[in-house]
């Protein structure tokens, strides 16, 4: 309830901010949010090279989800929005979404670790585990201007964890904020009520611009039943979740001071409260008493200035922190007299600087340096009983340790025809990036990338890219002790996972109002970190760099806008092979688990102007996928490396109807959105990691009311 008070308090700030927001240029913002399909293809993005570029010119395979799409499709979280993108597969354990990309999923206790998630370029992962919490606790959805998703490596620019992709959430400014608003939603699943409230305020006055957004919700998904591994009967009909509740809270604020003489100063901060009962966690299924709750925050001061016609510079300093909330209780059994407490925290300091020399609009040379110092108090589990006895669980490493990383990168964007009289190369732009990281725990890492973008026509380009990337082992993977005997313990010898990716893309507009993007990729991952089933004398699960993965695939996207319809369809096919050592069979190559071979996603928004409303239909077809190693051991304890079961394919259809802005109250407008998720009430399951697979949500109803001021 304290969280709710926060949101209400923030909403009351309206009265204070009214005068502040009067200078908002509504013409600009309206235009921005009503982008046509053409505009969408030419929208400027920043994530590919840390510089504004058009999507078709950017040396990356990049997709964008705009504020308008988020609003019209009724997305409630970043995870939901990302799940509409080609080459991305989001599964969940009803604690946090777990984003897989291009045929690879992080697996057991990985919550979207394979990609780097940022807010306006600031790393937002929970640094103890490097997980990215993509649910509603990440950022209030109203604060998002667009989400840029790069599929492919980007460590040469962003360093560690920009491994298989980058998600950069670009937030609105006060100037861009069309209207201040308060939203409420009510949802119903399995006769469980959920509700939430969110608000956004902001505006511009003189040289100051600010935005403040907050969201809080109480979501109840109880009544879900795990599905037994084929051939087993551990869970019966009465085994259903009765506490699948979560209370995500998020606050985001940004204050900008822009002076022609001094440059631009931005102070922003983000607060996440990840708070959820977990019923489908590998170490304590349906105990009805597991509550994971943690804070994750950052505060940042960013300064940018165009020093001259050619030179521009950006500096930033930030502080991040994360720790468990006092509400957290972990329980591996149903005995209330004994439970587990977790101690860990991190405090991170980032310092970065970038100097760019812009020869012209295209050609650019950038040099950047960043230093990160994360102070990790390693994750430790204690067993506590109701008489107050608290004992440290076995394994792991005690104490506090600094994770220091120094990164230096150099990037050049080069169009030869700009410097030399080479007419036939005028449409070819090359990008080269090189980065050196030194880390005090796992040592040096070099990454680089090379890209060539060729503009075939004005709105059609082809790209070829090659890059390397790495995923650093987290403090938890390196040093945690076990939650219970035989549980996961850290491995201090872990090395970073490494990837090499070759990509090719063709994208642009083929006919009026229809644009497309198609890409091929081949990725080779080495030193892949796997949670091994225990062998040898100790029964603990440990993470080790034991395997490699080869993955290839194709992604195709088509967007069209005609006859009051805005539609998209995308298809991805991926095949990934895991090379690992089996004790009996020795070296084997098998299909990777957890990720489907084929995914089709589509959506269509019908704009019914006369009825002041939009109808949105979205569908997803997910082909079958191989179950987790842990479950396949239950399925075939003898040949589980090669004899594996698959989860059934499924098709999900969502429907939403949203109104245009209606003038229900004087001097203000309102918007109503009705959404039915899983309209066909399809029964489907996500991969689980502990003798069962995790049920997906059945038909769920949402009503969302937004009041604009």
């Amino acid at each position, binding site marked *: 309830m304290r969280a709710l008070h926060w949101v209400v308090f923030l909403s009351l700030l309206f009265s204070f901010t009214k005068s502040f927001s009067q200078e908002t240029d509504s013409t600009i913002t309206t235009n921005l949010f009503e982008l046509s399909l053409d505009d969408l293809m030419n929208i400027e993005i920043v994530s590919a090279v840390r510089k504004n570029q058009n999507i078709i010119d950017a040396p990356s395979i990049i997709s964008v989800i705009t504020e308008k799409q988020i609003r019209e499709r009724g997305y409630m979280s970043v995870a939901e929005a990302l799940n509409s993108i080609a080459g991305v597969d989001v599964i969940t354990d009803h604690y946090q979404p777990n984003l897989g990309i291009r045929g690879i999923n992080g697996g057991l206790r990985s919550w979207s670790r394979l990609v780097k998630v940022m807010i306006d370029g600031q790393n937002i992962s929970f640094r103890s585990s490097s997980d990215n919490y993509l649910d509603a606790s990440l950022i209030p959805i109203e604060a998002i201007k667009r989400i840029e998703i790069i599929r492919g490596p980007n460590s040469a620019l962003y360093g560690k964890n920009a491994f298989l992709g980058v998600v950069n959430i670009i937030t609105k400014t006060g100037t861009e904020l069309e209207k201040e608003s308060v939203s409420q939603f009510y949802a119903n699943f399995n006769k469980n009520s959920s509700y939430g409230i969110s608000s956004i305020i902001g505006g511009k006055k003189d040289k100051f611009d600010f935005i403040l957004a907050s969201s809080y919700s109480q979501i109840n998904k109880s009544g879900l039943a795990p599905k037994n591994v084929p051939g087993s009967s*551990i869970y019966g009909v009465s085994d259903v979740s009765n506490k699948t509740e979560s209370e995500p809270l998020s606050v985001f604020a940004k204050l900008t001071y822009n002076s022609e003489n001094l440059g631009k100063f931005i102070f922003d901060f983000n607060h996440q409260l990840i708070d959820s009962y977990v019923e489908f966690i590998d*170490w*304590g299924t349906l*105990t009805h008493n597991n509550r994971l709750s943690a804070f994750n925050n950052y505060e940042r001061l960013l300064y940018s200035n165009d020093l001259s016609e050619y030179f521009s510079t950006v500096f930033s300093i930030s502080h991040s922190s994360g720790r468990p909330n006092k509400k957290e209780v972990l329980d*591996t*059994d*149903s*005995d209330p*007299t*004994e439970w587990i407490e977790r101690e860990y925290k991190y405090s991170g300091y980032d310092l970065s600087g970038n100097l760019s020399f812009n020869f012209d609009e295209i050609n650019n040379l950038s040099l950047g340096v960043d230093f990160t110092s994360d102070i990790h108090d390693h994750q430790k589990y204690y*067993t506590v*009983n109701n008489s107050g*006895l608290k*004992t440290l*669980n*076995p*394994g792991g490493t005690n104490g506090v340790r600094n994770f220091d990383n120094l990164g230096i990168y150099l990037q050049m964007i080069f169009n030869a025809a700009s410097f030399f009289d080479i007419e*036939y190369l005028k449409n070819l732009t090359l990008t080269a990036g090189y980065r050196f990281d030194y880390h005090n725990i796992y040592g040096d890492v070099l990454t680089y990338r090379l890209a060539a973008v060729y503009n*075939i026509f004005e709105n059609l380009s*082809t790209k*070829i890219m090659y890059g390397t990337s790495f995923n650093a082992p987290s403090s938890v993977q390196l040093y945690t002790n*076990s939650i*219970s*005997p*035989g*549980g996961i*313990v850290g491995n201090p010898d872990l090395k970073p996972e490494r990837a090499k990716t*070759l990509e*090719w893309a063709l994208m642009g507009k083929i006919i009026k109002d229809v644009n497309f993007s198609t890409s*091929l990729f*081949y990725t080779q991952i080495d030193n892949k970190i796997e949670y091994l*089933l*225990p*062998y*040898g*004398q*100790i*029964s*603990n699960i440990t993470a080790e760099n034991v395997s490699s993965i*080869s*993955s*290839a695939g194709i992604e195709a996207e088509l967007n069209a806008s005609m006859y009051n319809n805005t539609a998209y369809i995308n298809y991805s096919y991926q*095949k*990934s*092979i895991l090379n690992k050592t089996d*004790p*009996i*069979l020795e*070296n*084997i*190559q*098998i*299909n990777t688990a957890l990720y489907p071979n084929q995914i089709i996603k589509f959506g269509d928004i019908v704009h019914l102007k006369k009825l002041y409303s939009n109808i949105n239909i979205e569908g997803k077809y997910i082909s079958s996928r191989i179950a987790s190693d842990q479950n396949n*051991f*239950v399925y075939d*304890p*003898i*040949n589980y490396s*090669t004899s594996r079961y698959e989860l059934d394919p499924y098709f999900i259809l969502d429907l939403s109807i949203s109104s245009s802005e209606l003038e229900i109250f004087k001097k203000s407008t309102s918007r109503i959105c009705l959404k039915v998720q899983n309209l066909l009430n399809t029964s489907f399951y996500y991969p689980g990691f502990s*003798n069962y697979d995790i049920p997906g949500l059945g038909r769920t109803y949402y009503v969302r009311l937004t009041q604009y001021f």
Partner: protein
Amino acid sequence: MIKKRNHKLYIFISLLIVFTAGCEELAEEHNTPDLENPIKIGVVGDVSVLREQVENIFFGVQLASEEINNFDGVEIDGQYHDIELIYENSAGSAQEGIDIVKKFVDDGIKIIIGPTFSSVALEMAETCIKNDVLMMTYSATWPSLSLLDDNDLIWRTCPSDYTFGIVAAQYSYDSLEHRNAAILYRNDRFGKSLSNIIQNKFVALGGEIKSLVPYPDNIVDVDSYNFSYELNTLFKEDIDVVFIISFNSEIAKITNDIYNNERYQDFNVKPNIILSDGIIPEELIKNGNPELLETVIGITSTNTGNPNYCTYKTNYKNRFGFSPVTYSEHAYDALYCISYAMQKANSLDPNEIKTFLREVSGIEVPDEEIIIDQIVINANEFDIGKNMLKIGVSINYEGASGKINFDLNGDPIPKFVIWGIENNEFVELSYYGK
């Protein structure tokens, strides 16, 4: 213009070639060993119940088969036969074990190594006897297996619980001077039988069993099980020692629950904890409650000081990357004993093989160490052993578990190491047997 178009076409075709070539590599590939005239031998374990331990046991048999096959396998009537192992999971279920035997018989497999549990072994044994199948278990320790009317078809390479129970009770009473004991045991055949033996011996020596507490043998997830009910009963009276008869996978959780038990904390002098065979010290050191470690005493049939065990351990570690666990050496020895007996019999018929098992494993003669005209064959010396047998020389296979010397019941000569933990290190305290 033509040149430009060609240029683009070449790039496009090149990319497609690279992509197609990349995808070509992306196919599943499993190693299937190329075996010559394979002799199929069934290997059965309760792997879904005790995964880590049983897999390690399987790896022990696998190592033995690879070593034997490296020397061209067994030679029968001048023809070389590689060993092919067919692994099956009996899942802790007697019925599952019986079904596996029937399936093996249908597939023409007449030799079985396993299973893990006594409760499964007893039922499987009856089916094996009916079908003339030779069965040799590596870890079923229930004494009744020795007394079966088995037509000499049922064997084991691990010592019987009868000797184990006697040793445990005697060491506790005589060496540690315990007088008041409690027993916590798995409520299955193995637990009931061993607890009875310990109880009878401890009482016969003059001690008193204050409580005898079973715990369920069907716990799906031991980490989710709380032993407080059992422990409250176990610790209701003052005791000097607790005998715990459990599986390795359960012991860490039990020790943690013991430490968190209020009655245990009330003891001024904490009782010793004596563990059953099969508990791995490294597991206890890693996952057991650290406060209890120095009160723990284990008894194991694995003799790590034996040179043959050292050879086995080194080879095992080189092959699989980790160290073997208790009983894996017994499984390794089982395949060697059967293979030597097969070679000696020059036959694949179980009824022929069984008649040579005692001879190839060394015959125990009272007041003599070994029969003099037998050549001792150590671990991983199959070429020597095979050649000796081919020229008619008797051999005495001394395996990874030491001397085997099968007795008339098909049991090996018993030998135990009594161990403890000091400063988080495994230490050997005493020995029993040869």
